[in-house]
Every structure is written in structure tokens, then in C-alpha cells.
């Protein structure tokens, strides 16, 4: 398992949100203004601004007490309508899951992964569908049963109804998730064999920002060799040559390392063989620490790549405070101090080489990382549960919003559709289109090519027609770019893989963007839901 953990750029994220939100908001306001003018004539403009002002004023006058009243009502409704029955199914799963998972593998490291994956998946699949159904049916059922009539004829604003329902379902889901999460934690810890409990930790990796390579002759390159793998995640270096991969780690927490009195690294390299070699021997690899300031090179002991192991302990290289090494080109044994000689301030550079001629080692940026002191398993586990909670909040807010303008079954289908599109990710075609990397241009150019049997790489002659097509495609692609952002990317929230692989969920790369994505959908959904309820006749026939 590899994690290509990339830090989240908060400023860029906010600008991106404002672009999408601003664009959609401007389009919606313009459409509303136009409809108001068409429907009411000149006075429509006044009505539009009056409605807008009223919306702002309503939001400012939101009463937390009324919102809380509807939240409590929602909790009572869910609990009395047996929504908490989901606990029974969870308990049944836990009672019998051990039978099926225990004997599935004989390696404790994989067994741990299985238990954690199972429990987090069970929690996800029990909680999210229940919350989806509850949130999609809440307001439509109130409207259908006309219970909402007795609420909106009190001094209750529409957004208070929506917020109350949203917080109520979130409360229900949070309680369900907390109980399941805590139970699941103790169940997992209890199921892991005693001898494998040491593996049950959260490793805290620090990844390098960028890797660089040298080729077989020692010349600098941006990437290594492509061995023909379609998935170009890893770059390869040839064994027995001057090919190297360079990892430079910055911004290390020196205090934590000093406290730990050691520096640990973990690798996850992949071997690529051009000949079988010796049956029982794995590829040989060597790491060299390079201090660019003092030109000190500290070659570390040669090791065999444990390419098929999932055990972190077998892939960890530890540098103690005092490191003995053989000076390169001589057989002199020297000693270097970790803090005084090896580290460059709070940075360190590591050079990787393959020692087997004719064989290759493949590596990507996250395949070598510095291991800060481990955290408890609970840290990654509960962060993964928090990831499920964020998904749940997102589903609830989409469901409640959908319920504000369509009936229960349609709201369910709509929300389910949005979740499915968001969870499966967008197709390569769509990504290619909106990023402009798709051959053959946009929809209009593609249609033209199909009509005239032109392949996607043939140049179209410049002229008025191609200019018109380019303009139309630009508009269309802009529209598609906006549309693709209306579907939340659920892959941001998948923190289970971190917990299952014993890695702590990083704040900057995963937790922060997940929280921001949730907020980025919650705020527009609340606005949309408010206006849907406000402009809707409760008693329309």
C-alpha cells in the first residue's frame, strides 16, 4: 500500500472554493433575477432584492433555541422510530465476524489490517445508508404529514427548520458512530493476537517534498527509468550503476527526534527483476545520508528489500545518536553524531542505490519517509472514524437540502447519485476535458471530428469555424468544470486505509482538506435549502 500524501494548500483551496461558489452563486442570482422580472414585470427587480434582503436578515436572526428544539425533536423521532436498531445489526456482525476473519490469514500483520478494515467498513456501511435515508425523508415526511404546518405557523424561520433537522440527524449519527467506533476499537484490540499487539500503532511519517534522481552515469534527472509499468507512480533506478534516488526531508521536528534519541526511516521500495537471480535472495539496497553543507557522506549498512512484507519493523532503518560507518572508498570506520554531523539543521538528505547489477528498484515520493515517534493505534483509528463522521455530515446536509425541494424518494435517489459519483471519482474523460489534457478538444470540436472522420490528434485548420468551436468549447468546459465541483470528492475522506496500514492520519494532507470540503458543501447547501423552503408553498396542491 502506498500513500501519495500531498500537503494541502489552504490559500489555493479557499480561492478555488470562492471561484466555484462565487460562479454558481452569481449564475443562480442572475437566473432568479431574470425569472422575477419575467414573472412580475418591472416590479420583479424590487421583489428580487427584497427577497434577497429578507434572506440575509432571516439568517442573521436565526434563533439557536428554536434550532435546538427541532434538533431534540429529530433525535426523539429517530430514536422512537427505531433508527437505533442499527446497533443490533452491528452487534451481530461483531459477534460472528471473528469466526470468519480469524482463520483467513496466518500472518498477524495482515490479520490486523483485516480486522481494522472490516470494522471501519462495517461502521461506514451501517451508518451512512441509515443517515442518508433519515435525512432524505425527514422534511418531505413533515410536509406530507403536514406536521411542518404547525411548526412554520409559529415564529420559526425556514433555515431554522433546516438547521434543526441537520443538527438533529448529525446528533443521531454522531451517537451511533461514537458507540460503534468505541465498541469497534475495543473489539479490534481484543481480536489482535498478543504477539502482534506491538504492530498496533500509528506511525507518524514525514515525507519529502520532492525526489530527484541521477542516471546510470551519475547525471541529474527529474525521474528515474520507466520500466514499462503503465502506472507511472514509481520511477526505477538500475542496480550496480551510478543511478541514485535522492530524498530530501525538510522541517523535521528536532525536539521530538532529540527526545527519541534516534531517527527512524521506513521504506516501501519495489523490486523489478530483469533476471531471476538467486531464488532465496532479495535485492540489495543501500542508503547513504548526505550532508550537503559539510559534504559528509554516511553509507548505512546494506540491506535486502522486504518487498512482500507488511510489517513495519522489517522495513525500518534506525539511526542511533552515534552512527558508525565505513568511509566510502576506504575501509576506515568512522563515527558521526546524528544531531551534529548528519542532520543539516532540521533537514536530512538520503541517497538510495540498488546494488544488484541488472536489477531495478522502484520508488515514489512516499516510499521512503522519516518516522517520528509512534502514536497510539487509537490516534489513527479514531481519526478514521472522524473521516466517516465527516462523510456522514456531508451526506446528511445533501439529504436534508434535497428534501427541501423534492419528495422523499427523489431526494434519496438524488443524494445517492451525488454520493456515488463523488465516491467513484470522475472519469478520466471528464478530468481530461476539464483540465484541457484530453485529445480532440471539447464537445463541439469532438462532434466536428466525428462528423468529418478526423482522428483526435489531427490539427484542425484555423478559421472562423475553429474559432467558434473553441469559444463554444471554452464555455462548455467552464460549465463542466463547475459541474464537477458540485460533487464532493469522497476519496478525501477515506482515512480507513491509514488506520488499516498503521499510519497516523496526517492533518495537513487529509484531515484539513476533509473538514474544509465538508464546510464547503455545508454552507451552500444551507443557503439552497433555505431558499427552497422559503419559496415553496407548504400546502401546494
Amino acid at each position, binding site marked *: 500500500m502506498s500513500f501519495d500524501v500531498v500537503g494541502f494548500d489552504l490559500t489555493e483551496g479557499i480561492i478555488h472554493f470562492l471561484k466555484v461558489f462565487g460562479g454558481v452563486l452569481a449564475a443562480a442570482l442572475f437566473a432568479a433575477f431574470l425569472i422575477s422580472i419575467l414573472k412580475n414585470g418591472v416590479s420583479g427587480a424590487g421583489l428580487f432584492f427584497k427577497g434577497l434582503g429578507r434572506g440575509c436578515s*432571516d439568517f442573521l436572526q436565526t*434563533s439557536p*433555541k*428554536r434550532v*435546538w*428544539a427541532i434538533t*431534540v*425533536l429529530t433525535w*426523539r*423521532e429517530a430514536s*422512537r*422510530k427505531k433508527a437505533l436498531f442499527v446497533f443490533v445489526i452491528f452487534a451481530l456482525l461483531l459477534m460472528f465476524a471473528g469466526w470468519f476473519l480469524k482463520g483467513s490469514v496466518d500472518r498477524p500483520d495482515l490479520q490486523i489490517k483485516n480486522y481494522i478494515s472490516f470494522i471501519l467498513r462495517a461502521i461506514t456501511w451501517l451508518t451512512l445508508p441509515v443517515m442518508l435515508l433519515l435525512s432524505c425523508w425527514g422534511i418531505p415526511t413533515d410536509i406530507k*404529514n*403536514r*406536521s411542518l*404546518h*404547525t*411548526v*412554520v*405557523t*409559529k*415564529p*420559526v*424561520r425556514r433555515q431554522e427548520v433546516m438547521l434543526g433537522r441537520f443538527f438533529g440527524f448529525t446528533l443521531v449519527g454522531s451517537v451511533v458512530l461514537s458507540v460503534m467506533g468505541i465498541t469497534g476499537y475495543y473489539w479490534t484490540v481484543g481480536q489482535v493476537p498478543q504477539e502482534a499487539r506491538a504492530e498496533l500503532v500509528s506511525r507518524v511519517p514525514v515525507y519529502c517534498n520532492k525526489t530527484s534522481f541521477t542516471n546510470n552515469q551519475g547525471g541529474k534527472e527529474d525521474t528515474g527509468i520507466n520500466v514499462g509499468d503503465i502506472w507511472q507512480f514509481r520511477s526505477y533506478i538500475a542496480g550496480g550503476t551510478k543511478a541514485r534516488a535522492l530524498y530530501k526531508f525538510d522541517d523535521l521536528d528536532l525536539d521530538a527526534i532529540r527526545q527519541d534519541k534516534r531517527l527512524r526511516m521506513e521504506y516501501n521500495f519495489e523490486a523489478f527483476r530483469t533476471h531471476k537471480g538467486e531464488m532465496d535472495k532479495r535485492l540489495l539496497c543501500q542508503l547513504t545520508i548526505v550532508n550537503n553543507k559539510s559534504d559528509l557522506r554516511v553509507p548505512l549498512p546494506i540491506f535486502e528489500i522486504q518487498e512482500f512484507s507488511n510489517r513495519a519493523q522489517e522495513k525500518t532503518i534506525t539511526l542511533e545518536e552515534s552512527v558508525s560507518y565505513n568511509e566510502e572508498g576506504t575501509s576506515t570506520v568512522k563515527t558521526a553524531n546524528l544531531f551534529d554531523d548528519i542532520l543539516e539543521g532540521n533537514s536530512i538528505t538520503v541517497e538510495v542505490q540498488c546494488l544488484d547489477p541488472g536489477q531495478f528498484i522502484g520508488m515514489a515520493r512516499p516510499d521512503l519517509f522519516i518516522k517520528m515517534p509512534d502514536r497510539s493505534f487509537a490516534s489513527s483509528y479514531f481519526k478514521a472514524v472522524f473521516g466517516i463522521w465527516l462523510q456522514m455530515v456531508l451526506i446528511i446536509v445533501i439529504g436534508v437540502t434535497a428534501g427541501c425541494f423534492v419528495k422523499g424518494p427523489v431526494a434519496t435517489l438524488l443524494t445517492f447519485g451525488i454520493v456515488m459519483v463523488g465516491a467513484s471519482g470522475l472519469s478520466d474523460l471528464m478530468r481530461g476535458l476539464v483540465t484541457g489534457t484530453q485529445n480532440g478538444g471539447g464537445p463541439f470540436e469532438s462532434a466536428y471530428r466525428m462528423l468529418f472522420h478526423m482522428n483526435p490528434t489531427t490539427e484542425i485548420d484555423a478559421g472562423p469555424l475553429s474559432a467558434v468551436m473553441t469559444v463554444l468549447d471554452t464555455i462548455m468546459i467552464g460549465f463542466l468544470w463547475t459541474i464537477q465541483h458540485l460533487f464532493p470528492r469522497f476519496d478525501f475522506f477515506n482515512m480507513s486505509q491509514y488506520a488499516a496500514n498503521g499510519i497516523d492520519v496526517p492533518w495537513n494532507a487529509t484531515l484539513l482538506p476533509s473538514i474544509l470540503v465538508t464546510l464547503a458543501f455545508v454552507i451552500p447547501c444551507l443557503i439552497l435549502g433555505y431558499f427552497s423552503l422559503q419559496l415553496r*408553498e*407548504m*400546502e*401546494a*396542491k
Partner: protein
Amino acid sequence: MSEPENVIEIRNLSKDYRDFWGRRKVQALKSLSLDVKKGEIFGLLGPNGSGKTTTMKLLLGLLFPTAGDVKIFGEPSSNVEKNERIGYLPEESYLYRFLNADETLDFYGRLFNMSKAERKQRCEELIQQVGIQHARKRPLKEYSKGMTRRIGLAQALINNPELVLLDEPTSGLDPIGTRDMKDMILKLRDEGKTVVMCSHLLADVQDVCDRIAILYGGELKVVGKVDELLKSKDQDQFLTSALSPEARADIEAVLKKHDAKLISSDRPTSTLEELFLKTVQISQENPGQRFVSEEKGSDSPLDQKSEAKD
């Protein structure tokens, strides 16, 4: 004496129901204009589909008018703040059936930002007032229709409103429940509240309303004070104690002398409602007692009423 202020002002109010394509399906209300004054009980009458409930829902902002204006306390009906001073009992009591009576009133009290102490006190008062103390902890889904109407009225009064809108308040109630409801409506007026009720049960409206409006086909046909609308202009009526045949003959002679025609002369009858209520009351006091059997022709409970009371 100055004219009481208008609590509700409706001007040229129209409402069309349209289909998906915006085509008019039905015109539920046609240019309705009327006022409801402070402190009166106003009845909206009309057959099914005449526009009573539509008017009520337009007043509450549950529907948007196609044309015209509605003002309540001088504010447009879309204004949420007006709801602070309004209580509404819908045609069916669309309450949350999984809550019990205490929880229901507490919930609606919270919607008015009432404090916990206020909610508790109001809840006690209203539960006593509508007479459901015995069932206050039972979920509403177990309530009979009459009990549901009672808790529905209680929730409408939770904020001690100045204006109470009652949609078919007596529908589905037994005669005792109907009487209680009517008494409560009269009490509301005595407390200075304005009540607007719509119903097609004419006797109920006649019993309690000061003014009425009759709608037909979405149009206002009649509006005015009940007494004035019902008063016969070309007939007189006297109510006396029982007369001897001689006295009867003398009266007829006097009437003849003044060219007046005696249209009918009979012993006055009470209402069925009175008979029913009295029967129940006496039955509660004397469980073993039986009253009328056609064969024996024994006394009516209404006669016993006077004996018992006197």
C-alpha cells in the same frame, strides 16, 4: 365608542391552483375582501371547496396569494414575526405522533423561545384546560380523534395568542367535546382574543360566532353580524309560560283584531345537543337511572333537569 381595530385585513385576495406547466387548474379564491375586528369571533362558512381553508392558509403564509393583499396586525402574511401573536389549529391535528402531550407542548413552547419555567406552567394550564390530564404521558398516536383535537387546541394556545385561527375546530368531536370546544372559544373571546374559525357545521358557528362570512365557489356571498343576518324582518316571536286553551283563544282573537296572522303556535323544543348533554350529565350522577322509553312515555331528561336543578 370608537370602532375596534382590524386584526385581519384582506383586500382583493385571489388564489389559483396551477398544474406543473403553470396552467390554472382551479380558482380557489376570487377577489376576497374582508376585515376581522379585534375581540370578535369570526366564522368563515361555506360548503366543501368554497375556499375557507385556502383563506386560512393564505392568512398563515402556508400558501402564496396569486393576487391581492393579506395583512395581520398590519403586517404582511409572509412576515414571520406576526406568528408570535397567532395560534393555529389545523383541520386535522398534524402533530408529531411519537411525542406525548407534555413533550408536544414543550416543543411548541420552545419554538416561541419560552423559558423552561414558562413552558412548564403553560403546559400545566393548557392540559387542565383541554382536559387530557389522564393521557398526558401517552404518545399522540394512541389518542382518539377528540383527544387529538384537544391537544391540537392546546398547542395553538401555547403562546397565549391574540389571534386564534381554528380550522374546523369541532370536526370529529362528540357532543360533549363540541360543547367544551365551543365553551373554550367563547372563553377566548372573553379574554379579549380574536378568533377566526372556519366550519361547515352551521349550528356550531351560530352558537359562538359574532360575525360570519359565507363563501361559495371562492367568492364572498354574505358577511355580517350573525344576529342581524338571522333576524326575521317580517315576523315577531313571543315566548311565554304554558298557556291555557282560553288564554290561547284570547291571544288569537287579539291577533285577528290587528290583522296579524298566527303562523304557528306550539310548545318550544330544546336542541338535540341539550338533550344529549343532559342525558350524559344525569347518567354520570345516577349511573343506574333510565329515562325514556317510547312505550311508557316517561319524562325526558330535560324535564328532570329542571326538577333536579330546582
